Each structure stands twice: as C-alpha cells, then as structure tokens.
C-alpha cells in the first residue's frame, strides 16, 4: 500500500475544515486546554483591534502575543482559519522533510510518507489547538521548520526560523544548541553507534553569530513596529518567566503559583525557569552523536514543563516520535505511557468541566488531572531517553539474557 496517496486527501481534508463553519468549533476557542493567555485567539483579536485604533496593545495586560503576530496579522494576512490550516500543512510538510532527510530518501517518496504526515495532521493534540485558532500552531511550525532546514543543512533558513520561533515563544531558545549541533553534523540516525561529536566547532560559532544577527534584526523590527516602546518585552517574554496570568492550563506552573505566598514567588519562578534550562547541556552531551534526537528530547521537556503549556506542546513531542522508528523496539513501557496519556487526555476536559462549568469540583480536580498529564509527559520523555540510549547496546543474545540487564539509573 502506497501510503503517500494519503497526502492529498489529508491536506484537502484539513483545508476543507478551515472553510466549514462548524458549530462546535467556536466553543474550542475558549478552552483552557487548547489555548493559554499567550496563544489565545480572542486575545489576539483584541490586540489587533487595539493596535488598529492606535492604542498600545501591551498596556492593559491582556495582549501577550509577539509583536511579530501583530505585524503579520495587521498587514500581510487577516487572522482567518485558513492561515492556521496552512500553517498545519507547512508543519506536516516540514516533519516529512525531516523524516526524509533522516532516512536519506532524497526527492523520491519513502514508504512511510503518508504515515508521517498523518501523525502530524491527525494528532488531536495539534489538530484541536489549530481548530481553536491558538497561535501555538505557528510556534510549532516555526520549530519544525528550524529543524527541517537544520536537517537539510541549510543554516540560514534554520537559524532564521529558530529566531522567529524564539520571538514567538521564548522557551524555544533552548533548542538553539541542538540546532547548531545538527547544522554541523548529519541528521541521519547515529543512535545505534554513538560516537564523539565531530562537527566543526568554528562553523558552529559562526552560525551562532548568524543566529544572533537574525535575532537582533527581528528584535529591532519588532521594537520599531511597536513604536519604540519596551513594554512588550515584559508582556510577552516576561510573561513566560514571571507568570502574571494564572489562568488554568494543563501545565504544572499555574496551580503551584496560585498557592504560593508572594514572598516565595521570585525564588520559585527562578527555580521553575532554571529547571527548564538545566536539561539542555546533559541531553546535548549525552546525545552528541544525534543532535536531532537531542532536540526531540528537549521538545519533550518543553512539552511537559514549560510555563503556559497547552496541549499543542506535548502534541509536537508525540508527533515527532514518528521520526525515530528505530527506537520503538527499545521503549521500556510504551503501552503504560500511552495509557497514562489516554487517562490524562480524558481527565483534563472532564475535570475542567467539573470545576468550571458544573461547579461540582474545584481547582484541585483540574490540578490532579494536570499532574497526570505531567506524569504522562515525563514518562514519555524518560522512555524516549532510555530507548535512545538503550539502542546502542543492541539486542541481548539468547544465552546472555539472564546474566545482565540494561537499566537507567
């Protein structure tokens, strides 16, 4: 069965959905699982309206999107559902290109093209936020584009996409190191035969400089666009670091900081932010032979622990699993992880409804569900990490099986 015949069907299906005014879709826009204050469509429209009426959109604490969204949606494109559909399709295309680069397929089609695209386009964690017009769709697409260009060895494209991505969501800055490593090495799987990092460090430094340049240009453009004010910095990037808006989401931050006494707040904000960053070096060192896998793991870290998490973040991690079929046999407990994910995916909307809509439950219910979600994300990550390392040992020979075991300590 040639799975690439799915592709046009999937794409046209996604485009079609953008044009059908479904009754239930409008309800999704206010769903706390699908969009956070940083990505909500209602807030985006509010900001655009304020901007159109010459009011500083960042003054009221409502609008927290990047100025780049303001400029794109107020000049080039109107914020119509079709833009989200296109972004989804570009994301799927990028995932496909990453897959092909990793498998060294080239221009032809591999047998799993259709599957890769389907995993991206039909993943409910990505699909529903996109239907809810959450701007996390664009963040994910930017990340995938950066990885795609990096896998194909196109430094300018990769660094520009990454610069965009960090502007849209500051936490993707953590992906800079693996992307640089990917640029100077190859995307082809080296998991089974780990070796020392052999990329050219000088080139990597050069690329880092190039990234800084792109980033500064975008930064300058954003500041000019907003009229030379600096308030947007605190409202957009600052929000990820200082958590001013405690609207519930499936992540682990909001409840913790709702319960926190104010004088502990700065310390724990620091702890939570640093916690995200500490994974970068260990993962990049351990997976120095396969930078794409390292970036995949870091996407997983962001997808369970970042501030203002929405389902789109774990969704990106889960979709990227399709790129690494070689590790599947070494996953330690895939079915348990899947079950925890299913539990979390069912519990989140139910407990949210119990608390917010029906009034039977309280915030603890939803927090419990988001803990399950955190556990599911963590288990997925640990499993991916284990499998990525375990594959290097290969299969255990028949007679040896009882004599030794591979464990993760």
């Amino acid at each position, binding site marked *: 069965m040639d799975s690439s015949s799915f592709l046009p069907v999937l794409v046209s299906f996604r485009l079609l959905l953008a044009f059908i005014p479904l009754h239930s879709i409008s309800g999704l826009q206010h769903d706390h699982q699908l969009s956070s204050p940083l990505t909500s469509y209602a807030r985006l429209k509010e900001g655009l309206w304020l901007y159109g009426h010459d009011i500083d959109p960042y003054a009221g604490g409502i609008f927290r999107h990047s100025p780049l969204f303001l400029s794109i949606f107020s000049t080039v494109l109107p914020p119509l559902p079709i833009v989200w559909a296109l972004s989804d399709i570009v994301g799927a295309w990028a995932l496909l290109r990453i897959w092909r680069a990793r498998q060294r397929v080239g221009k032809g089609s591999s047998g799993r093209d259709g599957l890769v695209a389907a995993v991206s386009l039909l993943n409910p964690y990505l699909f529903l936020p996109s239907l809810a017009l959450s701007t996390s769709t664009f963040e994910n697409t930017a990340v995938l584009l950066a990885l795609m260009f990096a896998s194909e060895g196109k430094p300018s494209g990769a660094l520009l996409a990454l610069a965009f991505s960090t502007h849209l969501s500051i936490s993707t800055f953590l992906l800079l190191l693996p992307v640089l490593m990917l640029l100077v090495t190859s995307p082809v799987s080296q998991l089974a035969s780990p070796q020392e990092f052999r990329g050219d460090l000088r080139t990597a430094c050069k690329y880092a400089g190039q990234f800084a340049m792109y980033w500064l240009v975008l930064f300058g453009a954003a500041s000019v666009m907003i009229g030379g004010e600096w308030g947007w910095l605190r409202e957009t990037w600052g929000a990820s670091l200082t958590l001013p808006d405690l609207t519930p989401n499936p992540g682990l931050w909001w409840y913790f900081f709702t319960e926190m006494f104010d004088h502990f707040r700065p310390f724990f904000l620091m702890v939570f932010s640093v916690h995200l960053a500490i994974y970068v070096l260990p993962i990049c060192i351990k997976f120095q032979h396969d930078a794409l896998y390292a970036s995949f793991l870091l996407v997983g870290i962001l997808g369970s622990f970042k501030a203002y998490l929405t389902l789109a973040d774990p969704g990106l991690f889960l979709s990227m699993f399709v790129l690494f079929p070689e590790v599947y046999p070494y996953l330690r407990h895939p*079915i348990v992880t899947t079950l925890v994910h299913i539990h979390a995916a069912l519990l989140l909307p139910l407990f949210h409804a119990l608390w917010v*809509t029906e009034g039977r439950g309280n915030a603890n219910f939803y927090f419990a569900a988001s803990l399950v979600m955190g556990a599911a994300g963590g288990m997925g990550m640990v499993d991916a990490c284990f499998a990525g390392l375990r594959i290097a040992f290969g299969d255990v020979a028949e007679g040896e099986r009882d004599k030794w075991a591979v464990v993760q300590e």
Partner: protein
Amino acid sequence: MDRVLGLFRRQRQNTNVLRLRRRKNAANFVYRHLSKITTALLAVGYLWMALIPILPLSQLVYIDENALQPAQVNTNWNWQDVHQADLYLLQLEGLRDRNATSEQRASFIRDEFAKLGLPAATQRYTFVTSSGNVSGVNAYAIMNSPRTSGSEAIVVSASWLSELGEKPYNLRGVATVLALAGFLKNYSLWAKDIIFVIGDNYFDGTYAWLNAYHGTIPHNLDTDLLELTSGVIWNALNIDYSGHSFSHLGVFFEGLNGRLPNQDLINSLRLISHYTGNVPLVLYDHLEQHDAPQSSLLANTPEFMKRSPQLREFEYRTRNVKKHVSYQARGRPSGPHGLFHQFRIDAITLYAVPANGPHGFFALGRIMESALRTSNNLLERLHASFFFYILTTPGTFMKIGTFLPSAVLVGVAMIFWGLGQWVAAGWVQEFPAELQLQDKEDDSKAVNVATTTVPTVQSIWRPRRRPVLPAIVAILATHTVGLLAFATINTSWFLRNQPLSSLILFLALDFVSLALLAFISSHPHPPETAPLSMLLQSFNLCLASTVISITSLLNFSLAATLAVTLGIPLLCSRGSPSTSLVSQPSWSVVYSVLAWGWLFLSQEVETAVWNWEVLGVWFAPFVCIVYAPLVMQASLVSRSLFL
C-alpha cells in the same frame, strides 16, 4: 584509604544489583501470580459493590453550611392560605376536565399571577425530535426581592404533569405554587428574587424555560428568549403533589447525566420537613420498613429472615441504592429538578407520597416557606457539603471514598490482565524438537505458568514482534460501527418500525462484526508475530478499564454497571486454561447479545433517544459509541480463536 573507598564502591554496586534483583523478583512475582491477583481484585471489587448498602459503610448526614439554619424560623402559612390553594385547585380541576389546551392553561396561570400583582409571562416552545415534535407553553412569574437588587434568585416550580405518582396531573403542585406566590409576596424579608415556574408537560417545559432563561437554546428547540428575567438562580425546589393527601415527603435528587445537587439542600429539607412540617422525609417513594413493609427481595424467604431487622434494614437500603443507580446510570433526571443542575443550580423535587392522610396543603406550605427562608439565608452558593455521595437512607449517606474504590478495583484488575497479555504477546516459548507436540494456542497460554526463566526449564523463550496496527484498526473500526449504529437509531425510520428495525440492525451489526473479523484475519500473519487476538484483548481490556475508572468519579452508577457488564466477559474473551467452556462458538452469540441485545428493549431505546435529543442525556451515545464497541472487540477476540 583506597580500601575504604573500595569497600564503599563495592557496596554501592551491590546495592544496585540488589535493587535490580529485587525489582525483577517483584515483577516476576506479580507476573507469575497475575491470574490470582486479577481474580482477587475482581472479587474484592464485586464484593465491595454488593456490600454498598450495609450500615458500616454509611455515615450520618449533617449540615455543613452554617448559613442555612434550617427549621429555625416561625412559619406564617396558615389555613387561610390553604383555602386559597383549594380555590386554585378547583379552577385547575376545571381546566383539566375541560381538556384545556396548553395555551389556555398557561394564560390562566399567568393571569392568576398577574392578579396577585406579580410580573408574569408565558413562553411557547417546540422541540424537534425524530419521534415527532414536542411543544407546549410555560407560565412564570417573578417576585422581585424587596431587600436587594435581585442579582440572585430562587426558583419554585411545578410541572403540569407528574410521572412519579399514579395520577398524571400535578394539579395540587401547581395550586401550591400559585398559593405560595400570593402568600410570599406579603413578606418583606426576601433577599433573593423568587421565580415561580409552571412548566408544561413533564420535562420539556422546564427544560425549555431554563434554556431560554440562560440563553443556551439548542438547535432543535424553537423558542424566544424570556420577556422577564431575574438574577443568577442558586436553588430550585420543584413540587410534585399529584395525589390527594400525603403521609411522607419523598425527595428526588438525581439530575441529568448523573449530576447530584449539593447534599446540604437535601439535609436541610429533611430537618425542615421533620421539625417544621412534622412530616417524615423519605428517599423517593420508599417508605421505611417500620412504616409500611414493601418487601421485594425478602418476599420468598423463610419467615425468620423476613422478620430479621438487620436483613430488613439491608433490604430497605438496597432498594434505595438500586433506585439511585437506575436513575444515575441512565443519566436520566428523577424529576424536573434534575434539569436545573447543569446550570449550576442545586435543585430537588419534593414528592408528596400519596396516602389517605394526614397531610395536605397545610404541611407542604409550611415546609416550602421554611425551605425558602433557609435558601434565602445563603450568602454564597452551596458548596460546603458533598456533591458525590450515595444516600442509603434519608439520614445516612456514603462518602465517595467508601464506594468509588469498588469500581476502580475492577478496572485495575482489567488493566492488570490487559498488561499481562501485552507482555505475554511479546514472547514465544520454543521447545526442543521432541517436545514440539503442543499446538500454538497452548504456547501463548502457557506463558502464564513460567517466566521464572530458570535454566532447568527445557524450553527457550524468544521475543516476538507485536504488530499493534491491525489491533488499533480493529478497535477504531468497532467504534466507527458504533457511531453509525447510533446515527441509525436516531432516525425516525428506526423509531417508527421498532421491532423490525431492531432486528435488521442487530443482524447487520453482527454481519459487520463478522466482516471485520474476516478483514482482519485476511492480513498476512507471519509466524514470528504475536496473535492478533492477544493484542486485541490486551488493548480492549486497557481501554475498558480506562473508561470504567474515569466514569467512576463522574457517574459512579454507570461505572459500576460497566464494571459488572464488562468485567468478566472481557476478561474471559480469550478463554483461560481452566475454562474450556468459553471457547465454544455459541459464546460469540452471548457477546453479540451483550453488545447489542438492548436494541430489542424498544421502550428503553425510545426513552434514551428522546432523552438525548431533547435533554442532551449522554447515555444513548455512550452505550452505542463506547460500551457496545468494547463488547464487540471482545467478541472479535473470542471469534478469532476459531480461525
């Protein structure tokens, strides 16, 4: 120094090895005794479920919200108000005898409200359903609170019809509401608006009114927004008084989709009914054993059992729990009050249990007055007491912790067995040439016996591939079939040709199930892979367990019903070494009947579809899209053994 360090190092390594060994031993232990553990969990779960009505699991009810102060007021409702109610009743009986239309009834009620000086209006509505349209006219009036801005409100309601009693018309209930309107207006102590609603028919009138009030008009409801509105409704009391007199007040509390009101409301009513009205409060229409024995369970038992007070008490509690489960599992409201719950309004129905006396309008009016005063005291919504409970008697209840684990334990048993099957599917036992007589099926079953991996066993365990994709396709296909079946059931064609259409659908579904099986087994099955039936059963059990444990919090009765209907059939779908009985082809018929046999209960199907279309009760889609496909998967598993 080096020696000391070396000592430490060796010790650390030892502890690591020890830990590994311990972990492995624990896993081995669990795996070796998996069938025992599963059976034990299952047995404990079912036993717990059976023991839910017993006394030690319940505790005494209490009022949690201090602001309520139930039964602490002197009531002013008097015989002159009773007389007023009688006069209303006379006119209402006239309307009934004249076969007055909904329009005439509603305008009469509206005019009576208006005569009292209350702003009153009517509301017409039509629900479009596949079994025909349902329309009617509601009447309502709003008494503005003399003390506040009216940002909060209490509803006093009665529906025109009653489905609880023997008499179909709730005339005395409507008369009570009208008389109360005239009476309550004379007092200036109300801090909340009081809304009087007379809903047409039984459920649909009140539901249309509520949706119009909250501006959530569903697409199949044709009505206008209300002319008069008030504030946020906090509480609602619905009166069902269809008989002549009553001896007890029954409380009905189950709402749409198994939602329950805050327990404080029921407990307050209990105290008020006892101390203000001198009327004993009972659950539903179940009189307590010493009042009037309505034996059902103990009818055919020896005399000494019938006389045993403990058994009679148990029987009484069982009846209460059974009634609760029959309402909650099907998600249907036990009265018009149940429609209020989804709007975050705590509501109950007070049912005047028909009797030859001694109580009438006098007691009911006083109880209502006192209950309204109690609701009037609230400064915030009821939130302190319980939302998840089972009332075993009016005075005792079960906290969630005392009943929830029973269903969850069954779920855990299922997930354990499912995971065990997953592990078993990953290995194949190979015997040296002279022992290779056993057939393939026994191989997979024998996995349960030995994973001790001691080299003394002469067999070799080799890992094998587990192709998950066909199993997932099969699961998705069954759920799609369920969705299609649900769409069919919702058509007016199906409902009109009930017995015949049920038969056609049943046979079609069975055929689809066979076709699905043929399709799955047509896939090439390399010898080095696990049999599909094993993987399918594993996924099926894990999914079913997930469904049970997640519904158990939302709607325990549904989860418990699922645990009973799914537990053993799904666990036994592949048969177990001890029961060769299950591997008879006739057993697949049992699965078909378990999955779709309910299609032949035409009355039940019709009600469920009506409830889904008009009231949005999730029971019908849940059964079609979640429950039946799960059983279908089990039937696929059991059938694929014969291929």
